[in-house]
């Protein structure tokens, strides 16, 4: 299996659209955001449910808290985090001037 198949490059893009230094800094910040959101994902998806038994005796509006976290709490965290992530990533794009042309 050849590693790279030869052939001329397509006309649409022949050189980098962004200076490599900026690209590097941009990717570092994007990666940090990725790890942060991944951590939120892990805590809301797994971490808090480890304590379901401990949380269940606490009742709010009749909901045992451990049950509530798995049925609704974590889902709300997921949705809010994703909207926040989209906004934050757009800000990073604009900070480094790598957003798409309108």
């Amino acid at each position, binding site marked *: 299996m050849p590693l790279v198949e030869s052939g001329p490059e397509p006309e649409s893009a022949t050189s980098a659209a962004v200076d490599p230094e900026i*690209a590097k800094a941009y990717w570092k910040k994007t990666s940090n*955001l990725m790890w942060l959101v991944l951590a939120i994902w892990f805590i809301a998806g797994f971490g808090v449910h480890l304590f379901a038994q401990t949380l269940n005796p606490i009742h709010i509006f009749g909901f045992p808290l451990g049950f509530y976290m*798995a049925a609704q709490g974590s889902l*709300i965290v*997921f949705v809010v985090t994703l909207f926040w992530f*989209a906004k934050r990533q757009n800000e990073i794009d604009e900070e480094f001037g790598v957003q798409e042309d309108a």
Partner: protein
Amino acid sequence: MADTTGAKDPFIANLNKIYIGYTGGFMFFVVCLAILEQMGVPDRIIGYLFVFLTIGVYAYIGIISRTQVVSEYYVAGRRVPAIYNGMATGSDWMSAASFIGMAGSLYALGYGGLAFILGWTGGYMLVAILLAPYLRKFGQYTVPDFLGARFGGNWARGIGVIVLITASFVYVVAQIVGVGIITQRFLEVSFTTAVFLGLAGILVCSMLGGMRAVTWTQVAQYIILIIAYLIPAILMSMKISGVPIPQLMYGLALERIEVLEQGFRAAGMVPPPGVTGFHTSPFVGANGQFSLNAAVNFFALIFCLMVGTAALPHVLMRYFTTPSVREARASVAWSLFFIFLLYFTAPAYAAFGKLEIYQTVIGQPIANLPEWIKNWQIISPYGTPWVNIVDVNRDGIVQWGDFRIHPDVVVLATPEIAGLPYVIAGLVAAGGLAAALSTADGLLLALANALSHDVYYKMINRDAPTARRLMISRVLLLIVALLAAWTAGSMGADILFLVAWAFSIAAAGLFAALVMGVWYKKTTNAAACWGMAVGYLVTFCYLIWSEFYGLHFMQTFATKEAILRAATATAALPLATVELKAYAAGLVANASEIKDGSVAWLGSLWSGLPSDHVVLRGRVVGRLWGLNNISGGIFGVPLSFLTIYLVSKFTTAPSLAMQNFVEDIRIPRGGVRLVDRREAVQ
């Protein structure tokens, strides 16, 4: 993108108006049917009107969206706004399993069922941060396109296609079974006829217009399914608590359920088979106490469903259709929001249904049970009635453990259980049908595209003209659909458990290669191919081996005591073959001869989690470390990552051109410099 025709399209410009009008029209239609019901029109006619009129609308959208343009056919012209792509993804995603099955699982399993809720929502976090924006930037037509361009051509593309076809085909068969169950109940036709009727509905949507037709039909289907799910929940919440917000008010229902369950236990009643703890208690084992095994399975299932979500091609390919990278990110958030609307209602649905049954059925004499129970005492494809009253102690009273309802009918029957008008039952059926049809559409399209675009066009005939490619795609769509319907019709409902398998297979086969392709620049072609192959083969073999050759599985991985128990269980199976039973009986007869399995040390690695078996679906199913095989991806996903990482270390690093390609994908601005121009699409 060059293939965008701009916002001048009158349809795109008027999307809001069109869909608001459509929603209003549907509500009006429901009200009309409610009036007709009051005027004495028979239930059967109401059921027919719901099924045929909604399918008619989908077919109409499918026909007006027909297209001969390649980019329209594969990616809906890349101009689906984020919010609408979110809705389309929502219905693409929410299948018969979500709409019909999930509240039922929650009803039956209590806390344990929440693994599905968490797993099927949390996966979108992975889609948003790890994959969707980068796949959109890459900007071609299919997921194997990405694998081919990133990992040097046909090997990676081919392996990707094999994983895609296995996972999607298994999944689409289950959807067709779902369509069959609903059509059978509401049109009163045979299961096989129902399957082919449903198939016709699926095909008119996707045949003519490809992704474009499927997208706009799915938006329409989302609107129907969410209305159909929310209205009964709101009405039940009104009835029980007086407040029309089911998601907040079911806490009251949970409290009353707990009091009632305590009362049942105090009165010495036995719970239904399989129920051991209270509705809201987590991680309960067979003895009613905390079980490490239950906890591990809960988290393993969440993991597999999440990672599977982020690897199923029919979901990922939806993010190829947005106009930009920015919209792709927003679109994932909207997708999750629209899915969330249904998922955070499902536990409410289950709690209200359970409370209603505890209050109105348990403790009543069998002689004067309500009418709806008789309606659902018809035989299911599983061989037992959907609602089964088993008078265990023959006292003529429905005890807690006497009332058995199949999880798949909880949602469909709840309107009747709660005494709501029949028009609501019809509405729920229309919603379930929308959910199953929309997912089947998306899956069939993913399958047909993989075969026509990736296999035929990219691997066999690169010079094929556009018209021939679209023609081949349509013919393949038809063939795959017929094949899936035939499988569904001949295997029946036994196949529904395969849905969870589809997630494990996709997760283990594709996730690592996709993520590493974007996030680890040093991933080499060979590493990705090996990673996909290892993940896929390990998971697929584990599933087949543990499910269909459970005793042999145990003889390999378990200790001699566990093998003896599995052999005893196998000999007692009602439906096993004579040879298998004789073999198992032989083992039991010579119990002292049984030796530990050849890799029993591996199966006994964790002292708290021994390898054992369970009797499920009429088979003895083996479990390595006590893990259910629906979480089989738990082995394949880490192995796939590990393989990719290690092989990358020992193979020549990717060329500079390939590293540039990865750079381009990571950054929203600019074009993409492909390493091999032949990977480009015009």
